[in-house]
C-alpha cells in the first residue's frame, strides 16, 4: 500500500463554453494531489488525469468507459448535475454488472440533492454541500438580517434554479415567517441577454433583497443590470466565485453580493498557503477546496482500509471523519454526503493582505461561519449496500 499510486480520472468539460471552469478544477485536483500525496497516513500517492466530457452526460459515459478501460478505479466529476447524475447511474450499473471491478465516484461539485436522496447510490460520495444544505446555511444567515423583509427570487428555469426557489421558500417560512416573497421569476437558462426588464420588475415589487441560484453569465448580467439601474439591494447567491464570474462582477462595479459556500477566498494555514502557491504557479485561483478534502478523505480511508481497492475504500469512507481547513468533516454514511462547515462571504474590495480574487482587487470575505450541523439536512436515501 505504501508508495502505491492511485490514479483518479477527472471528467469535466475541458473544451467548449465551460472549459474555463473545468480547466481550473482539473488543475486544482492535480495540484491538491501533488501537494497532499504521500503525506497521508496511508502513504499513497495520487495522480489525477483529465478526461474531457464536454459537459455532456452522454459524453461522460464515454469518458467513463475510456477511464475504466485504462484501469481507473476512482473517478471524480462536479461540473453540472446532468453529467453527475448520468455518471452516478452508469457507475452504479457498471458496478452491478461487473463485480470485482468496482469504481468509486467522487462528486466534488454536482449539487442536485437528488444524488444523495431519492437517487442516492453507494458508490457515489459528495464532497460539496448540496443545494438544500447551502440553502439551510444561507437562510440561517438571512434570518438574522433585520433588513431582509421582502425577497425577490430569481433563477434559471431548470432543476437547479427550481430547487433553489423551492428550498428557499420552505426554509424561510420555517425560520422567518414574516419575510415576504414579493416576486419569483424563472427564466430559461442562458437565453437572457438583457436583465433590465427583470430588474425593473424587481424594483417595482419593492423588494429589499434578491435571492438567486444563477451562475455564469446569467449571474453576472443580472448583477450588472442591477448596478446599471442603480438598484442597490443585497443579493444572496450560490455561484459568484466560479471561474470568470469574479472578473465579470468586478467590471460591473460595487454591489452587495453574498455567497454561500463551504469555503472562502481568505483561508489561512495550509489551505491559504496552497492558494497562494497555486496562484503563483498558474496565475489562477484555487477555490475548489473539495479537492483538498477529497484527497485527504481518500488517503485516510485507504489507511483505514489498508487497501486501495475501491470496495474497501468505499466502505472505509462511510462515516469517516477527517480534519479539514475549517474543523472536522464527516462523510455521512446514510447518504454519502460530506458534513462540513459553511461560510457566508461577502464580495467587496480587497483590503491589504486579503486575497485578490482573479486579480480583480476584490475578494470574498467570510462574514459568518456555521458549524456542520447548521446546514445538515435529513436524507431520504435508502442506501443499498453491496452484500458481504
Amino acid at each position, binding site marked *: 500500500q505504501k508508495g502505491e499510486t492511485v490514479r483518479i480520472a477527472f471528467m469535466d468539460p475541458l473544451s467548449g*463554453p*465551460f*472549459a*474555463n471552469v473545468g*480547466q*481550473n478544477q482539473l488543475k486544482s485536483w492535480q495540484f491538491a494531489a501533488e501537494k497532499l500525496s504521500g503525506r497521508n497516513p496511508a502513504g499513497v500517492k495520487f495522480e489525477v488525469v483529465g478526461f474531457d466530457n464536454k459537459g455532456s452526460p452522454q459524453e461522460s459515459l464515454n469518458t467513463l468507459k475510456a477511464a475504466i478501460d485504462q484501469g481507473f478505479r476512482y473517478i471524480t466529476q462536479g461540473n453540472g448535475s446532468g453529467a453527475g447524475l448520468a455518471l452516478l447511474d452508469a457507475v452504479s450499473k457498471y458496478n452491478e454488472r461487473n463485480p470485482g471491478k468496482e469504481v468509486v465516484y467522487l462528486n466534488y461539485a454536482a449539487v442536485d440533492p437528488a444524488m444523495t436522496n431519492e437517487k442516492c447510490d453507494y458508490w457515489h460520495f459528495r464532497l460539496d454541500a448540496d443545494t438544500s444544505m447551502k440553502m439551510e446555511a444561507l437562510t440561517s444567515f438571512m434570518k438574522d438580517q433585520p433588513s431582509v423583509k421582502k425577497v425577490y427570487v430569481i433563477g434559471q*428555469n431548470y432543476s437547479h434554479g427550481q430547487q433553489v426557489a423551492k428550498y428557499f421558500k420552505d426554509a424561510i417560512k420555517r425560520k422567518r415567517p414574516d419575510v415576504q416573497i414579493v416576486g419569483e*421569476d*424563472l*427564466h*430559461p437558462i*442562458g*437565453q*437572457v*441577454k*438583457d436583465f*433590465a*426588464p*427583470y430588474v*425593473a*420588475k424587481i*424594483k*417595482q415589487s419593492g423588494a429589499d433583497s434578491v435571492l438567486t441560484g444563477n451562475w*455564469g*453569465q446569467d449571474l*453576472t*448580467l443580472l448583477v*450588472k443590470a442591477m448596478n*446599471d*439601474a*442603480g*438598484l442597490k439591494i443585497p443579493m444572496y447567491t450560490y455561484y459568484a466565485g466560479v*471561474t*470568470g*464570474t469574479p*472578473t*465579470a462582477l*468586478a*467590471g460591473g*462595479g460595487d454591489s452587495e453580493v453574498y455567497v454561500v459556500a463551504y469555503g472562502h477566498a481568505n483561508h489561512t494555514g495550509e489551505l491559504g498557503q496552497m492558494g497562494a502557491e497555486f496562484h503563483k504557479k498558474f496565475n489562477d485561483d484555487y477555490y475548489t477546496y473539495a479537492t483538498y478534502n477529497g484527497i485527504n478523505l481518500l488517503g485516510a480511508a485507504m489507511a483505514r482500509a489498508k487497501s486501495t481497492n475501491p470496495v474497501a475504500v468505499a466502505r472505509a469512507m462511510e462515516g469517516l471523519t477527517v480534519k479539514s481547513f475549517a474543523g472536522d468533516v464527516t462523510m455521512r454514511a446514510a447518504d454519502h454526503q460530506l458534513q462540513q462547515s459553511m461560510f457566508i462571504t461577502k464580495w467587496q474590495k480587497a483590503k491589504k493582505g486579503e486575497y485578490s480574487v*482573479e486579480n*480583480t482587487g476584490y475578494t470574498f470575505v467570510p462574514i459568518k461561519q456555521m458549524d456542520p450541523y447548521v446546514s445538515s439536512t435529513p436524507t431520504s436515501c435508502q442506501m443499498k449496500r453491496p452484500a458481504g
Partner: protein
Amino acid sequence: MEFFTISLLNGISYGLLLFMLSSGLTLIFSMMGVLNFAHASFYMLGAYFAYTVAQLVGFFPALVIAPLLVALIGALFEKYALRRVHKFGHVPELLITFGLSFIILEMVQLVWGTSSVDYRVPDVLDGPLFTIYGTQFPMYRAFMMLVALLMLVAIWLLLTRTRIGLVIQAALTHPETVEALGHNVPRVFMLVFGGGCALAALAGVIGGNAFVTEPGMAATVGSVIFVVVVVGGMGSLAGAFVASLLIGVIQTFAVGVDASLMGAFQSLGMAVTPESPGYTLWKLKISQIAPILPYVFLVLILIFRPKGLLGTREG
C-alpha cells in the same frame, strides 16, 4: 405608468441592441445570401480585440481599430475561403462559416484564455445618464443606442446611395454578366463581407464591456440574431430594424406579464391542480418564456408571413 415607461425604455434599448448585433448579419445575409454562422464569432473577436487595443491606446481608438482589424480578417476569409465555396451553393457556404466559428473560438481561447477578460466600460461613459422614477438609465446604454442608430444610417446610405447593393444582388444570380458590365464583383463581395464583419465587431466592442467578454459570448447571441434577420424579412434593412424593436419591446413587456394558462383556466372556472395532466405547461407564466419568445415569433412569422415583416421575397 412608471413600470410602463421604464419597460418601454428598456424594450427600445434592448431592441436597438439586437439591431446592433444583427445589422452586419443583415447586410451579409440579405445581400450575399450567406447564412454566416460565424457572425457571432466576429462579434466576439471585436470584443477581444477591443479589450486588448483599449489597454494599449484607450477605448475610443479601439472603437475604430478593432472593427477594422476584424474587417480585414473577414475580407481575407471571403477572399481565400468563402469565394471558392460560393459556387457550390449555400450549404457549403454555411458550413464553412461553421468551421470558421470553431477556429475563431479556439484561437480566442488560445490567445486570451478560456476565462472572461476584464474589459470595462470607459469611465467617461460609466454611470447614469438620467434618473426616471428612481431608476437610473445608464449612459453606456444610451451610447449603445446611439451607435445602433448610426449603424442603421450608415447601412442605409450604403444601400441607397451606392450601387453596391444592386451589384451584389445581381451578382447572386449572374456574377459573370455583372462583371461583363464593368463591375468588379469579387472586390464588392469582399468589401461587403468585410463590412458586415466590421459591424459585428463594432457591436462586439460595445457589447463586450456592457456584457461579459468571454469565449462563450458568441454562442449566447448566436441564433437570436438570425431570428431578427428572418423576422424582419430577408433583404430588408428596415425590416430588421423593426423586428429588433418589436422583439425588444415585446420581450421586455412579456417579462412583466405573470399570467399563465392555468390562470386562464381558473378564471373560466376549471380547476387546475398539480395532478392535472400537463400541469407544468399550464402553470408556465408568460414571463417565464419571454426570452424564448423570439423563436415562437420566428416560427409564427414564417408560417403566416414567410417574407418576414417587411421583406419582399421568400428565402
